[in-house]
Every structure is written in C-alpha cells, then in structure tokens.
C-alpha cells in the first residue's frame, strides 16, 4: 500500500484547513483515494492545530502515524517543531519563518518563545525548506494567499499534475480570487525550482 502522508500544522485561524482541503481535492481530481482528518471545536480558539492528509491508491485510515509523515507543512515555527516527530527519517518540512508567541502568562523576560528555533529546526529535522509565504503573499498584496503558496512549494514532490491543482483551486475558491490563487500557487512552485 503506497500512501503519501502530509501533515499540516499551525495556529488556529491560519488557514490550515483550507490548504488541506485543496490538497485533498487535487488528489481526487488526479483519481487518487484520499482520507483526511480535521480539527474542529475547542482547539480552534488560538490553540495549535493539525490536519492529516493521506493520499494513495487506497487509503484505509485518516490519521498519520508518528514517524510516518513524508511531508510536514508548517505555518509557524514553534508548530513546526512541535509536530517534527511525525516526520519519517527521509521526511521534508516546509516551514513558514513566522513566529506567533503563545499566550504570555507573565512579564518574566523571555517567557514566550523557543530560543534559536531556526537552528534547532534545521538540526532536528531531516530536511527543512523555508518558504517565506507571508512575505510572498504581501508582495502579491493578499495575505490570504499564504496557503496556496505553500501548496505550490509542496506540489513538486506530489504525484498530482498542475491541472489537478488548478481544478482544486477553482473548486475551492470564489471566481474573483482564482487567478490570484493560481499566481500565488506558481510562485510557490518557482520558490523551490532549484530543489530536487
């Protein structure tokens, strides 16, 4: 059973669910089976969130086992580190260089974030590809494009063709932003052009 496992992680409200849905739709357009596990309810109130997407010829279950993810797509650095243990030894992490400090409890200095997180991420992960999707989205003038930029970067290593992605984007987004989404998607693709 050849299954590709993609784990998305980030902070509630960052658009992780949308990204996973577009990925799952692209897989359906490519004629693949897909199962995906989403998070709803309490954890969406600013807590850490993760969605699991599994694609292949036949996918029996929806949860990625720890140590079984081929790809980790993280919208935030701390949440990249938190879910790093999901990666396989040959896994790849796509990470947004974004820091959202968790809720501060007091004014003690340095109460919030992991120090030297970039170094730790690169040291611990089998492989990190930095995708500054927020900066690229700002360049495009729409911060909501972060999720399609990340998908573009990831897409080079997945079995779906560009037309599958385009069909998924057209299915998921309203007509007036579809072109912008496709531009953002290609920006993500180009960002990793030198990566093999």
């Amino acid at each position, binding site marked *: 059973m050849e299954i590709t496992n993609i784990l998305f992680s980030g902070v509630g409200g960052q658009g992780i669910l949308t990204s996973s849905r577009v990925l799952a739709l692209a897989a*359906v357009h490519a004629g693949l089976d897909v199962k995906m596990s989403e998070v709803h309810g309490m954890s969406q*109130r*600013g807590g850490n969130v993760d969605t699991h997407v599994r694609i292949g010829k036949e996918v029996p279950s*929806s949860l990625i086992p720890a*140590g079984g993810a081929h790809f980790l797509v993280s919208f935030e650095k701390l949440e990249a580190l938190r879910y*790093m*243990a999901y990666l396989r030894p040959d896994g790849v992490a796509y990470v947004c260089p974004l820091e959202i400090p968790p809720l501060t409890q007091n004014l003690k200095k340095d109460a919030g974030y992991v120090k030297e997180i970039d170094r730790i991420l690169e040291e*611990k992960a089998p492989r990190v590809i930095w995708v500054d999707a927020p900066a690229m989205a700002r360049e495009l003038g729409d911060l909501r494009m972060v999720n399609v930029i990340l998908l573009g970067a990831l897409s080079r290593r997945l079995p779906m063709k560009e037309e599958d992605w385009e069909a998924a984007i057209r299915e998921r987004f309203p007509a007036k932003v579809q072109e912008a989404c496709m531009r953002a998607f290609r920006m993500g693709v180009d960002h990793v052009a030198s990566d093999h």
Partner: protein
Amino acid sequence: MRKLMLGNEAVARGAWEACVAFGSGYPGTPSTEILEALAQYEEVAVQWAPNEKVGYEVAMGVSLSGHRALVTMKHVGLNVAADPFFSSSYMGVNGGLVVVSADDPGMASSQDEQDNRFLAKAAKVLMVEPCDPEESRWMAREAFTLSERFDSPVLLRMTTRVCHQTGVVNPQEREAWSSKGYLKDIPKNVLLPSHSKVRRFKVEERLLRARELSESSDRWNPIFKGSADIGIVTSGVSFGYVREAMPEASILKLGMTHPLPIERIRLFASGVRRLVVIEELEPYIEAEIRNAGMEVTGRELLPFTGELNLPLVEKALLGAPRHKVTVDLGGVELPTRPPTLCPGCSHRGMFTLFRDMKLRVMGDIGCYTLGALKPLAAMDACMCMGASVGMAEGLEKFGGPKEKGKTIGVIGDSTFFHSGIPALIDMIVNRSSATLVILDNRWTAMTGGQPHPGTGKDIRGNDAPQLNVAQVCRALGVRRVREVDPFDLEATRKALEEELAAPEVSVVVAVAPCILGAKLKKGEAVQIAIEECDRCGACIRVGCMGIHEKDGFPDVDPDLCTGCGVCAQVCEKGAISLPGVGRA
C-alpha cells in the same frame, strides 16, 4: 460521481437521499456540521433546538406524522435526550427516526469520554457505526429503512475521527419515498404502564428480528477472509487501523453493533486460531463475546482511554509499532499553546473581574469555560450544560458565611436557554440569594457560531423570533435583573457588588455580541506608553493573544488587538490608550 466530503456532510447527504423531511439537534462538537450541511438541502426543514431533549421530541412528532426525521447531538447531548430516547424505544416509529450520537474519544472538546454504544443497548434500539465518509452516507440512508422495518429509532453512532474525517464518497440520487401519513394507535403511542407492559414484549421481539438481519447481513457485517492465524472483530474508525496494521488478517467488520451478531462472530471465531477485538473506548463488543463463552483478547492490548491510532493497533497486533519516531527533540522544551478567549472577546473583562473580586464561580459549558485557564483562572467548577445555576444555589446555601455574598453562577446565553431556565426557577422558588451572571453574546460560540433562541436568526440565516434574556428572567419572577456592558469594567464591578449584597436571587446580564458570530470589524489596536509602564503585569494577566511580553515589557500585536480596552482599564498607571480616546 466521486465527491470529497466530511463525515458529517456525508451523514446529511445520506439523510437527504433517504428523503428525510426534518432535521433538528443542538450544536456540539463533533456533531455540529451535520445539521449545517443538511440545511444546504432546501427540501429539508432544518432547525436548531434549544436542547437535545426538545430536538428529539420534535423529531418524534415528525416521525408520528409519518415523515422521516433526523436528530443530531454530541455524546453528552444524548444524556439530555435520554428520557425521550429510552421511551421512544417502546413507542417505535411511524416515519423513520435516526438519532446521531457523536462520541468524543480522547475528549478533544468534551467533559467526558462516555461510550454511547451502551446507551443503544440499554434503550434496546438498533445501532449502526460507520468507519468513513462513504459509509456515513449509506449507513445514514439505510438507517431510515431499518428504523421503519424494525419499528425502532436507530442510533447512528459516530466518533470524532469519523465525523471530522474527509474522504471520497459516491453520492446517490434522492429516493422516491412518500409518507404513510399519521396513524392513530393509542396502545402503541401512549406509554401508560398497561400499554408499556405490552410494548415491552414488542421491543424484545423487534430485537430478535433485528438480530437475524445482523447475523446474516454481509452488507452490515462483512467478513474479510484472510489468514486463519488471527481473526479480528472491529467496528467504526478502528477498522481502518486494523486493515493497515495487518492487511493479511481475517476481519469481521461490524457495521451493526446492536444487536450484535453473536452467532456470526462464533462462526468467524471457529475458522481462526486466535480471536482479537480492536475497539475504541470500552470493551463493549469484547464483553458480549466473552459472555457468549468465547475465548477472546483485546482490551488488555490497548489503552483504556483515548483514541486509537495506527501505532497503537500495530503494537496490539504485532507486539511493537511498525512506525517509529526518529526525530529526537530531547532537551528542547516546547511551550504549550492552549486555546484562549479571542482578542476582543466580551468574556475577558468579566473573568478579569471575577478573579480580581475573588468570587466563587460556578461555571458552565461554552467558550467562557476557558476563563478557568491561567492567567485568568477564575472558575471554581464546571460540570455539564446548565449546571452552573444549581451548583451556585447549593454552594451558596451550604458554603457558610465564607461563600455568602461571594458565590455566582456564570452561564452563557445559549446554555441558559438550553437548560439554565429550570434551574433559575429553582433558585427563585427555593429562595436562593445567589447571583447568576448570564453572558449574553447572542451566539452559540464555541461550536462555531450557531444561532440560538436569543439570536434572532434561524439555521439558514433568515430572521427568526428572538428571545430577550433579561425579559425571560423577569417573566420567571426574578425581581433584580440588570444588564451591563462587559467592556465597562467599573460599572460592571459596581453592579456585581450590589447584586452580591442583595438578600435575594439576582441576575446580571452582560450584553455584547460575539465578535466572530456577529462578524464584527476589528477595531484599531491600543497603544502602550512604555515610559509610563511599571511592569506590574496586570495587562498581561487579562490573558489576551493581542498583548505579550517583549524584552520584559508588554507589547501589542496590532494585527490581533481589537482595541476592546480591557487591558487599558486594568492598567493603574494609565499607560495604555485607546486610539481616538486618549489615555484610559
């Protein structure tokens, strides 16, 4: 046609295909999206009920009319609806009646982890359990046929990972089905003891007939023939883990888990050397197999709490998980990121006051339960829907002088309409002098912003009759009812002090809409004059994502801060200012 659907959306699709006329329920994770998805089908009358019991009873009325009805709730919701659930089992149905119980193994969004399969058994109704979205669709559809064929409500038992699993489904057309119309039948539908004694036998006969189907059906309870070394009995979401962990095993997958096909299991067991049950939560299937005198293992191989997953099932079946963690984070300490009240939430100021006034807070179920977490930590107890009111009454009466004038019940508006009203009546007629605070934000917020009786909208967003919380309290007979603005901390503190001192029951209604539910535009962020800050930390202790520590001083995130002004009001130095208002 292949279509991507959430498990909950697939239940709605299946019900629609079965020509369901009506859907009701009360929001509750992980069940909420079923009714929201059903509301997308305009042929179906869909409505939120104030609570699960009412939703169930309306659905029963629809069934009596001869139409098909669906009622949805989370696992603890079925406790609320347990009264009609158990009794309707004796009445049976006219139009098919399907009840969804969405259980939450692992308690992702719930106060307990109860396994509602036991409720189907106790109520003696049929139960079916899907494992993925496609099964959710066809089982929801077929459940209506089962309901009519066996004259029983059918429990469609889901779990979080089935409800919130997205997968490929094959939607079908809507069935041609027409109502038989109302059938008057007094001995069947009036549960007087003399009638119930007769119905009791019908219930037993029905289960015997249903068991024949369960025993013989390859569709509901399929067998996947494999190795004779091991036979695995499983159901629901666990089936996928079993298939993946041990594709070579023989598997009996139970889609109908009440009544259980004991003889089918016995036959299956006779063809394998070792019989194992893989099921989430309680050993429901395993106990029945053991009771029938078969040798079986299962529970001792798995944890007694939480969700199952592939590595756990691999460990149970193979002795060790095939998937192993290789990334070592040893030595790195990760700060947790628990959910918090949103920036701009109308509850934040209230809980800041409760904490600073050192009140004894009997809390309730909703976003505001997050007021129990640090740094607010301003809740003493939270049990179940509506319990804040009764617990406040009891604690205040027997807590001695220390609790007098200090004890409050805190309940959201949706929860108040759900089950707070009878408890408030108890406070009134039994002469409580406790104070009830109702947080009126006009939405059922925690589950994603559903309308409730105080919203003035229905599930499709159309205008609807709107109940006013303060008016309801006055009509019940509370003499001291006042409304406050929860963003005005000084006035709210004064109101709370006065009502706590009053020797009779009083209600304080904090009125301000949920910023998410009402889709309010974000205001401009506050500004901090760092030179005036004495680093007392009061602003940080309101627990807001919009303000955090930076180099030992508070710092505002202008993208998150909504300018609600709660942090500005607790700053004794007046170092925080609202745009356009100047220093607070």
